[in-house]
């Protein structure tokens, strides 16, 4: 009974953090897409250029480090060093986004490689330039192939976003822990926060799965 009251009283405050959490996730997905897709394309089609080495190192570095260490490195180290004074939210979104871009680049790279090579030849034989063929023939297919794996970035980022607690971003976990120190009732509040995350996860996946069905083309990609 007392727990119900505490939840009722604190939940609005915690739930307010949902906007921050979703803000982190959506920004990170967008940054990851904007950076990861070009990287994936370059790795496949300009693999011998002078970019390929730096990209491989970029991917290795961002995938090999814990998010927590990356957050500390950027928040306390690199950004202040460069004289950039960003609020924690933007540092968190940037770090999650860059990290996701490393993973996304590999998703897109794999998807592009799985498109039949003949598609490129057929497009070139019609007189399309390489970029034109990539844009109009390869990517529309590769993106469909990539969508299921890409969708998995959502639950990963959603759960990872709570690490931004460590630099004081006012997302759900940070708010929950503030409410816990006020009410001294960890059990109802942390469990309620977990439930909100689980529901968010479920809703997000439902939306992404329906997107997969919407873009489905007969005989194309597993769905």
């Amino acid at each position, binding site marked *: 009974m007392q727990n119900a009251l505490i939840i009722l009283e604190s939940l609005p405050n915690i739930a307010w953090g949902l906007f921050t959490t979703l803000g982190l996730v959506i920004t990170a997905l967008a940054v990851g897409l904007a950076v990861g897709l070009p990287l994936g394309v370059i790795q496949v089609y300009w693999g011998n250029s002078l970019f390929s080495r730096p990209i491989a190192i970029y991917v290795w570095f961002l995938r090999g480090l814990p998010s927590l260490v990356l957050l500390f490195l950027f928040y306390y180290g690199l950004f202040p060093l460069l004289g950039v004074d960003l609020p924690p939210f933007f540092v968190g979104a940037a770090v999650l986004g860059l990290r996701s871009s490393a993973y996304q680049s590999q998703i897109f790279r794999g998807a592009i490689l799985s498109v039949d090579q003949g598609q490129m030849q*057929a*497009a070139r*034989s019609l*007189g*399309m330039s390489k970029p034109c063929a990539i844009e*109009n023939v390869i990517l529309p297919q590769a993106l*469909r192939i990539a969508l299921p794996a890409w969708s998995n970035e959502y639950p990963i980022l959603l759960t990872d976003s709570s690490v931004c607690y460590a630099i004081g971003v006012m997302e759900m976990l940070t708010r929950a822990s503030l409410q816990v120190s006020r009410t001294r009732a960890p059990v109802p509040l942390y469990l309620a926060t977990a439930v909100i995350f689980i529901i968010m996860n479920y809703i997000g996946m439902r939306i992404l799965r329906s997107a997969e069905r919407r873009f489905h083309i007969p*005989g194309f990609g597993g769905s």
Partner: protein
Amino acid sequence: MGDVILKVRDIHKRFDSEEVLRGVSFDVQKGDVKVFIGPSGTGKSTLLRCLNRLVEPDSGQIWLGDDEITHAVDIDGVRRRMGMVFQNFYLFDHLTALRNVEIALIKVLKMQKASARELAMSELSRVGMERFAGKYPAELSGGQAQRVSIARSLAMNPEVMLFDEPTSALDPELTGEVLEVMKKLASGGMTMLVVSHEMEFAYSVANEVLFMEGGVVVERGAPREIRNDAASDSPGRFERTRAFLRRIDG
């Protein structure tokens, strides 16, 4: 001599240690239909791919009309003038039959959407596929897919059509519909280079049959002569071709 539309001189191509083409030369006049036959691995497909430079030849020259295209900078412009039909169709799997035909019109020729659609539709009906305009490649039979891919090349209004074994990936009962379309094209005056072992097609529409072996053209002649030679047992000009044809006839 009439209009020479394609002139090929001494093409060489090496993949790693293997020399696939070892000096191939021929002329193609407007309206010619040339059929290339020969054992697999003798460079017929590579030859076609060299002509529109999907494969870069190591040496030799190619002229399309008056332009030497061996090292042309505007390779996309050259490819626009040569249609290519592949053994495995290579229809764009994410686009409907109609969109497959449209896309290069819009993206390469910069046509308006409406006129591109109109032209694409008329090309589809030229190959008898207008009823399947809304179908995706996965929903088409092999013969239907190949007819769409022919329409896709035709829509670009090419000067020459290259066919790389257009029927060899098809079930036997489906080759007929594709060959019908190709015959109609030939009788309409289209210049065509065809890699194929469909001898009935060669005998009925080709001006010349070229037999390739080991990266060179070994024997060449009019289809009528080759057919007569293949049927006789006395020594003739086309002994290698005759031996090959008997082998594929089983």
